[in-house]
């Protein structure tokens, strides 16, 4: 199969671009996969996004997929697309660790539903990606710490850290992450990519290592909104294996991407600024305000909105997910606490100290917030807010006890609590060259409108075309070498 992209960096093609070339047989999935493996070998030693790399199986799958496409059996926009998975999605025969020493020898016997769907769509698995231990905030429990490709001295955002880094640095075409209180949107924002929190129930949670059953969401992380729409279409849909899975039909999200947002109303979260304004980095505030102005100039109507009890979203979320996390890992705490890192240990133990009264009160607040957000979303189509309170912090300044800081999570956590879809889309850069993200949240099951507005914005402000600076000074073995050696040994 010819390669019709001479002179282009294959690893920075969007999924849509690569898919178009693959469909026309102008690009070989083998060449595309090899381009990613070469890129990983060249730069992942500096950013550490991969925990497990699968070069042999990826190339074998690419050759198989190439045969299918040549034979005229093109399956769709993910056919032949190399992807990465946060290391909490079960993959048959491939270690799935949740980023923790507790699970470092765990090899699932079947795929998570989302993984099965991506494989069925013909995507090629490059490997499993680094993550904060057990999807909590903070450091990885095993492997090297992922680093932000825009400045490797800065954090990549947690907990889908490797997913954010790999997509931003051209180390996969798209990735999956999980989001319990912001873990898709934070690394998306800090790495300058798109991250989508789908409606709770829209994407099956079956086969994902849990942190909090009622708050965990799985979603795509990509360079463009269009790519997120393509991935969501594949992974969404009812799954009888997940008791909270929605039976609602899955629309063709790409049809919503018209670029026209005239007549839509964007609500600006005034309460967030009134309560936390001084805590939001001024460059983030300026970038988000400019983005809202852009949306207005594109034909959207903008008005201020309030979620009266927003300030309680953070503590309600913390109580629920630490309590549920404790329930998930009580036995681990009882028998293998020494195998857990200090940060996850502190938080999981704390979940065991909250009382039933705390959990019930948090759930009642959740109900209240759900009604308040629903009221707002009757007046406006989307709610806009910063995806994070600032650009990526330097590692040396990162406080691992960040959950104690309520301001950080309120405007992201609230959408996990109420189950609404929300996206982070790049909306600029700080003076130091670090990305900033705009968050847009919509009505339950209405990812189409969220994607529609984010897509229109990205057409006007295509920050996705800017990539992290070239990686230099790389030295030492990468995970690629380790994986290759393991494949050879076996």
């Amino acid at each position, binding site marked *: 199969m010819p390669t019709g992209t001479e002179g282009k960096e294959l690893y920075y093609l969007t999924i849509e671009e690569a898919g178009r070339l693959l469909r026309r047989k102008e690009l070989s999935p083998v060449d595309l996969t090899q381009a990613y493996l070469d890129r990983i070998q060249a730069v992942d030693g500096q950013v550490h996004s991969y925990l497990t790399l699968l070069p042999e199986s990826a190339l074998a799958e690419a050759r198989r997929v190439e045969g299918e496409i040549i034979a005229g059996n093109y399956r769709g926009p993910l056919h032949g697309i190399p992807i990465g998975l946060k290391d909490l999605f079960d993959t048959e025969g491939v270690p799935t660790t949740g980023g923790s020493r507790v699970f470092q020898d765990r090899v699932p016997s079947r795929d998570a539903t989302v993984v099965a769907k991506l494989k069925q769509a013909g995507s090629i698995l490059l490997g499993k990606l680094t993550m904060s231990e057990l999807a909590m905030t903070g450091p990885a429990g095993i492997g090297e710490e992922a680093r932000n490709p825009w400045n490797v001295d800065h954090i990549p955002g947690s907990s889908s850290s490797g997913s954010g880094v790999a997509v931003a640095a051209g180390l996969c075409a798209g990735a999956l992450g999980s989001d319990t209180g912001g873990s898709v949107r934070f690394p998306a924002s800090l790495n300058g990519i798109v991250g989508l929190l789908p409606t709770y129930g829209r994407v099956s949670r079956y086969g994902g290592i849990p942190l909090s059953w009622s708050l965990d969401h799985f979603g795509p992380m990509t360079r463009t909104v269009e790519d997120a729409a393509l991935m969501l279409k594949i992974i969404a849909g009812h799954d009888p294996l997940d008791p*909270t899975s929605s039976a609602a039909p899955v629309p063709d999200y790409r049809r919503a991407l018209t670029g026209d947002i005239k007549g839509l109303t964007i609500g600006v979260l005034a309460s967030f600024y009134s309560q936390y304004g001084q805590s939001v980095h001024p460059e983030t505030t300026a970038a988000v305000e400019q983005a809202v102005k852009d949306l207005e100039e594109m034909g959207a109507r903008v008005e201020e909105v309030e979620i009266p009890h927003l300030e309680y979203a953070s503590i309600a979320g913390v109580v629920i997910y630490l309590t549920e996390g404790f329930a998930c890992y*009580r036995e681990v705490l009882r028998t293998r606490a020494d195998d857990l890192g200090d940060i996850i240990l502190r938080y999981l133990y*704390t979940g*065991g100290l909250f009382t039933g009264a705390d959990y019930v009160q948090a759930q009642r*607040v959740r109900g209240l917030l759900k009604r308040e957000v629903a009221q707002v979303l009757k007046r406006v189509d989307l709610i806009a807010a910063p995806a994070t309170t600032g650009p990526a912090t330097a590692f040396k300044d990162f406080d691992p006890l960040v959950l104690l800081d309520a301001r950080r999570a309120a405007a992201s956590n609230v959408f996990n609590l*109420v189950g609404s879809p929300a996206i982070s889309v790049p909306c600029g850069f700080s003076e130091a060259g670090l990305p900033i993200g705009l968050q847009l949240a919509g009505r339950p099951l209405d990812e189409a409108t969220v994607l529609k507005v984010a897509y229109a914005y990205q057409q006007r402000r295509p920050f996705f075309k800017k990539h992290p600076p070239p990686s230099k000074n790389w030295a030492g073995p990468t995970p690629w070498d380790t994986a290759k050696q393991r494949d050879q040994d076996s």
Partner: protein
Amino acid sequence: MVTNQELRLLFERAGLSPSQEHLDLVSPVFQGFLEQLEALHSLDLEGEEVQGGFMPQDPEG
């Protein structure tokens, strides 16, 4: 302020007996949440019932 003794009792109820080293790690985190917990419980939620979980089939509910 919760003492180490009280923390131990709470952990015992949960079927755990963490080491002193682990207690020292957990204590400041839990103490750090106490003020926010107090604020959470100070909310007058009147007849607000428990939301067991989001029902994806019923976005309004």
